[in-house]
């Protein structure tokens, strides 16, 4: 479903703040793969996500989604294939607009906007039905502005919006990191429900190793702009945090800076 071939990215090349963020990353995802991505600060996790989403163009390499080469497409044109949830709960929704208006925009992701009415009454029943499984009572608040919602509610709504039009690839960029532990657990459960029930091809960055091990069918660890560890299937199922740390030490030849990763 997703084919990444040897992508490279250097920020601010030739200046004092030069930063090599991706040193040649290749990744192949099969349809329905749910991959968790871990790595320390500056490992290139978010850079990888943003490279796929098209926030910037990569220096070298190729990104193909479902047979379509998107390497040169601008961000908004990739949205047709990609659903995204950001780390910052404020980033995925428009705060000054109603829940209904946000959902209406998401329900047309990848389509060219027209002069039809944006949030017609006829869509309301559909929106309510979509909101109900979130168990947040949002189905009764269609006309509330999104700015009135809590961070957890906004992330749940963003997750719904990102998957409303089925994405070829779902990108979750530490989408529970800004939430309190209880809310984070709820949003993660919702994520598992949506991704597993609809078999969405998903890349999920997390800084929580336990989540990385418990979710999905494959795990990759990035380190200094490269994929260091890549485990899947039964091997991943039996993996423990201790194993993971040992694997890291062996592969990287250094001890993992545990400040950067939550071990619990």
């Amino acid at each position, binding site marked *: 479903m997703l084919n990444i071939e040897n992508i490279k990215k250097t920020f601010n090349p030739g200046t004092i703040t030069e930063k090599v963020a991706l040193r040649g990353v290749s990744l192949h995802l099969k349809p329905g793969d749910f991959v968790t991505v871990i790595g320390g600060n500056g490992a290139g996790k978010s850079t990888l996500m943003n490279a796929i989403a098209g926030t910037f163009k990569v220096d070298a390499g190729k990104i193909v989604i479902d047979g379509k080469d998107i390497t040169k497409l601008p961000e*908004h044109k990739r949205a047709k294939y990609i659903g995204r949830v*950001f780390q910052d709960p404020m980033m995925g929704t*428009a705060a000054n607009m109603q829940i209904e208006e946000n959902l209406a*925009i998401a329900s047309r992701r990848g*389509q060219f906007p027209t002069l039809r009415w944006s*949030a017609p009454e006829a869509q309301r029943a559909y929106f309510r039905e979509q909101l109900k499984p979130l168990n947040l009572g949002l189905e009764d608040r269609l006309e509330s502005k999104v700015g009135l919602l809590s961070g957890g509610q906004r992330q749940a709504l963003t997750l719904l919006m990102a998957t409303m039009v089925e994405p070829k690839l779902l990108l979750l960029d530490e989408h529970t990191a800004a939430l309190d532990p209880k809310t984070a657990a709820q949003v993660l459960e919702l994520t598992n429900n949506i991704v597993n029930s609809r078999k969405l091809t998903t890349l999920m960055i997390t800084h929580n190793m336990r989540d990385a091990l418990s979710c999905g069918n494959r795990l990759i660890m990035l380190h200094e702009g490269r994929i260091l560890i890549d485990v899947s299937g039964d091997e991943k199922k039996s993996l423990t945090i201790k194993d993971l740390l040992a694997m890291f030490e062996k592969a990287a030849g250094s001890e993992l800076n545990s400040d950067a990763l939550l071990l619990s």
Partner: protein
Amino acid sequence: MDLIIPTISQGLLWSLLAIGVYITFRVLDIADLTVEGSFPLGAAVAAACMLGGMNPVLAIFVAAFAGMLAGVVTGFLCTKLKIPALLAGILTMIALYSVNLHVMGKANLSLLQVDTVFTLYSIPDVTLGNMVLVIGAAVVVFTGVLCYWFFGTEIGASIRATGCNPHMIRANGINTDITIILGLLISNALVAVSGALVAQANGFADVGMGVGTIVIGLASVIIGEVLFGTRSFKNCLISVILGSIVYRAVIAIVLQMGMPPNDLKLFTAILVAAALSMPLCQAKLKKRKVAE
């Protein structure tokens, strides 16, 4: 008392400018200074067309088209060429000063010798002053309804979302360069129409008539929002129109009370500065109260 009708009439004609400023300042979240040039551009284009024998109604449409072009130029500068929006607006505004002089051929054109939209169709027993009120109200209601409809459509909603959260709308497949250019186009078209109408009502177009229009627009927007609310987009549109009328009333009152007309712009600037700093002052006051 005899000031009431002209005050409301002027407020209505200038309210199109206020809606234009609302679209950039609040909807797109851009302080667009192009209006300082597109307002006199609308006046200049309409005046030149009318003096050339064109129907005054048609002249307003030509003015609107000229305003659209001005908006597109600013939009192009700030999206495609990545010039900060404030500076892009200033560049277009300065360029338009020369353009306006070219359009008019001189600094000032009188329209007293030609028909305007206000003199073209006369209704028996209705004075010219009242015609301005009637036509002004009709144009404003028409424009208000059109704006309400447009910003409720899929394209309009994309423009509103762009100002609110460009990341979100790009992640949903919308090209924000296009929505920003489109917003600036609509805004400056309205501002140019406002300029054309004001020129026709006042009987002249002047190259300097744009000075301070951004501040007048902001004053109308802020007064309207404070007095009449911001609950929904419809509410905001009505607030801005009423804000424009209230602004004219305030000006009329302070002039009546003996303020020299030369101080008008200073007065307006202080009014806007005070209104814009209000949230900060309120927060500070609240903090002090909590501390006590």
